[in-house]
């Protein structure tokens, strides 16, 4: 049975629930199988750590092997190699590899051409591959692509390479395309941030795109199904501790909200607490660590780093956080009252006749 477009819109919308992908696993696999030989993916790595590629290999529902093998089972024995080009798994190197990328650019139907970018874009001269600046590759492939997927925080928003100081002018693919005057292409980029990108998000989005369904996106072009909910407000398993004001210190993973050790869950929109990582094994907060907000555009700066410093202490004035200034002010007021009171009491004693101000 062919999976219908309507089914897919439904799956894409529902996939924010943790095990929905597992539930629809067979449908997702079928989509890849249906398209078989016509899955045309070009996967480029810019200023990347390759963690996003590695993350894809950790996919669980369905796992990478299931996806790859399904393609071969349902079609005429295509070997196990999903993308037309991808550095880390591809058999070819050198001039043949360059030819494959160019073939992908020239290729015409059937089936959509999907460009997956891993890693940030940079100013000219900081990343070269196949004899050209990486920027040129992305411009050409983006021009040819039916869909562009930025997998991971680097390609979505610049990620770690665009951390304050940013010596290479790193930025996300969307910003880059705007910079080089490709606004129309920039508009369509689907961002799948997190560091690394979550494999579920990529597999579902690829399957959706094969069906011609673009998932509903938020204002940063992230699919709402994965990034629609706040970690702290709507999902965190340690929320009950927060509400009771019980906080974990460093080295206490079993109890207490991580807020005091720097959890950025309150400013992070991603589904880690429910979806988790590595076949639903765990996620940052569960092992006693703070969420560092790796899914957000400003990350790692803005609200996020320093990672082990609690949120309200991040903006400081003259080096002191709000709590210190506040305590000082309230303390000063209390002290003022005390001094005033003490002086009045003394005066009253020494000069009973002295008329008190404001009184009778």
């Amino acid at each position: 049975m062919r999976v219908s477009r309507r089914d897919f819109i439904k799956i894409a919308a529902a996939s924010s629930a943790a095990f929905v992908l597992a539930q629809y696993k067979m449908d997702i696999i079928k989509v890849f199988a249906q398209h078989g030989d016509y899955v045309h993916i070009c996967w480029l790595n810019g200023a990347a750590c390759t963690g996003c590629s590695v993350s894809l290999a950790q996919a669980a529902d369905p796992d990478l092997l299931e996806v790859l093998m399904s393609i071969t089972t349902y079609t005429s024995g295509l070997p196990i190699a999903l993308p037309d080009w991808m550095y880390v798994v591809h058999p070819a190197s050198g001039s043949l590899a360059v030819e494959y990328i160019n073939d992908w650019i020239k290729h015409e139907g059937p089936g959509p051409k999907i460009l997956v970018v891993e890693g940030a874009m940079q100013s000219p001269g900081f990343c070269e591959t196949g004899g050209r600046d990486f920027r040129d590759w992305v411009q050409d492939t983006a021009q040819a692509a039916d869909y562009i997927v930025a997998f991971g925080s680097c390609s979505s928003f610049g990620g770690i390479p665009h951390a304050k100081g940013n010596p290479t002018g790193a930025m996300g693919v969307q910003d880059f395309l705007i910079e080089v005057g490709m606004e129309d292409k920039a508009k369509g980029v689907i961002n799948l941030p997190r560091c690394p990108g979550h494999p579920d998000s990529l597999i579902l989005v690829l399957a959706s795109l094969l069906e011609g369904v673009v998932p509903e996106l938020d204002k940063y072009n992230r699919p709402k199904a994965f990034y629609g909910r706040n970690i702290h407000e709507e999902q965190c398993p340690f929320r009950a501790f927060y509400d009771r004001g019980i906080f974990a210190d460093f080295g206490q993973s079993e109890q207490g909200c991580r807020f005091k050790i720097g959890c950025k869950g309150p400013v992070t929109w991603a589904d880690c607490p429910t979806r988790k990582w590595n076949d639903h094994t765990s996620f940052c907060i569960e092992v006693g660590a703070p969420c560092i907000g790796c899914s957000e555009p400003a990350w790692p700066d803005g609200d996020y780093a320093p990672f082990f410093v609690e949120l309200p202490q991040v903006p400081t004035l003259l080096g002191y956080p709000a709590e210190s200034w506040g305590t000082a002010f309230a303390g000063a007021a209390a002290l003022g009252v005390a001094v005033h009171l003490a002086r009045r009491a003394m005066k009253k004693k020494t000069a009973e006749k002295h008329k008190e101000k404001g009184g009778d």
Partner: protein
Amino acid sequence: MTSFRVDPISRIEGHLKIECKIERIPELNNEYFVTECRAPVTMFRGFEIFMVGRDPRDALLFTPRICGVCPNPHSITSAMALDDAFDATPPPAAILIRNIEEAAYYIYDHLIHFYLLIGPELGVIMGPEYGAPILPPVAGIAGLSKGIGTHYARCIQVQRRANEVVAMWGGKFPHVTSYYPGGVLVEPTLGRIANTVTSLVPLWEFVALTHIQDIMNLLKANERLKEVTGAVLGVNVGLEDIGIGTGNFLSFGMMPEVESYEDDWLDTSKRNNSLIKAGAFYDGSRHPLDENKITEDAKYSFYDVPDGLHPWDGLTVPNKDKPGAYSWTKAPRYDGKVFEVGPLARMLNTFGMEWRIPRVHPITGEDYGDFVYRVRNPKGSVLDRIVARAACVLLVANSVFKYVNQLVSLVKEGRVSTMNKKPVPKEAKGRGLWEAPRGALSHWVKIKDYRIAHYQCVVPGTWNWSPRDSKDRPGPGESAIQCGTTWVPTLNVIEIANALYSGWGDVLAQALTKLNPKYARLNMEPTDTGEYVNATIALLVVRSFDPCLACGVH
């Protein structure tokens, strides 16, 4: 003299290209051999720049992002650098948890390299009988039932299980979040320990039985290879004869023993009790490590910095237009000399030239016989690097059960604390030294006013893929490619496979052509005179190092 290049290189991490000069050698059947090689690394991000000014603890979460293939070594190395700076020795449970997490991670990394990255080449060399299981399953599930790609496919699943253990303790993989100066954030619950053991048993079985068997098959196939090359070239050339190194091997040690952590491990000139010892192996024997002998040159690197700086004084001032420079890696040297790092360096420094590693099932106690290997080429070679990697992963798969048992004992005694919490120091310095899968890794941090004032990383990818140094000596990778035995045939992969095992090339061609008709031209590169040469052997040398360039440049 003519030349060719390979750019990009797939199935490695990051952006590396090789530019080779080749010459026909009359004594060797007038075949082409590489006489000179440059290996430029072509991507730079600038971690050592944008980490300055940050909270020192942020290094724990920034440095793993240097590399998503080996994030864990950076996590633990930055943690040890901060332990040092914060003057915080982790409690025993934390040391064991770090060991367990790194061990599980390590199993994933080495397996991925053997099966997914270098496997396809080895599979071709090993032929239809031994090689098929480690080739990608070219005929889908049907192929799997015939054995083709079974180990390749199982590796994809096994590495995933290994990383689930990493995630149990570290939150997620890649990029764990649970390290902290003076320990780890995660507590050793019985649930975590039980799940760890459950996952580790099948990992051990894959490593000790399947993977080691594949290695033994490779050794057999290598003899066949020598016969065939003997027929073509007039000399027997096996995998131990290509990619010959410098004979200098550096190891920083890994997996400390809890009992001797302070006396033995923290003193990097000792590190005798750890699973892998620290040391500099040259002139055929191990010498104690001396941290002060590490320096970095930058003559051919895109940085405006002086040569010969120790990482405590290291500088990172990028200049992408620097005349004469050709790589974003610096050129680390030890005692002023070129040193190779990696699994072979670990094994030589720890066990010398002959290794014997038991294979006793951790649960049933069944003995599958020791894995024994004598180093074939003491200067290093493709074969020795590959076998050393397998030996290391077996060693780690054995020892992780010891760490788990020790942790269980601690939990029973109630010694569960995983944190020796210390405040961020106002002014301090610290360094961490560790063995990442690809070799010796070090982080060097200075703290001023509670902020990072200086952060330098000298990474395995920097050591092995360094460009030429201030004395114009090529780095270990470059040396191995231009060692004189890198044959660049004009035959294509299919023809070579047919020469190795008759009909084998045709089988491969059939499978590959379905994927894309152009695959017959796999690894065939045009020279500047327009001829096509086969770069497979050069690439085999490259991949024998398991290069990681995101690491190398950071």
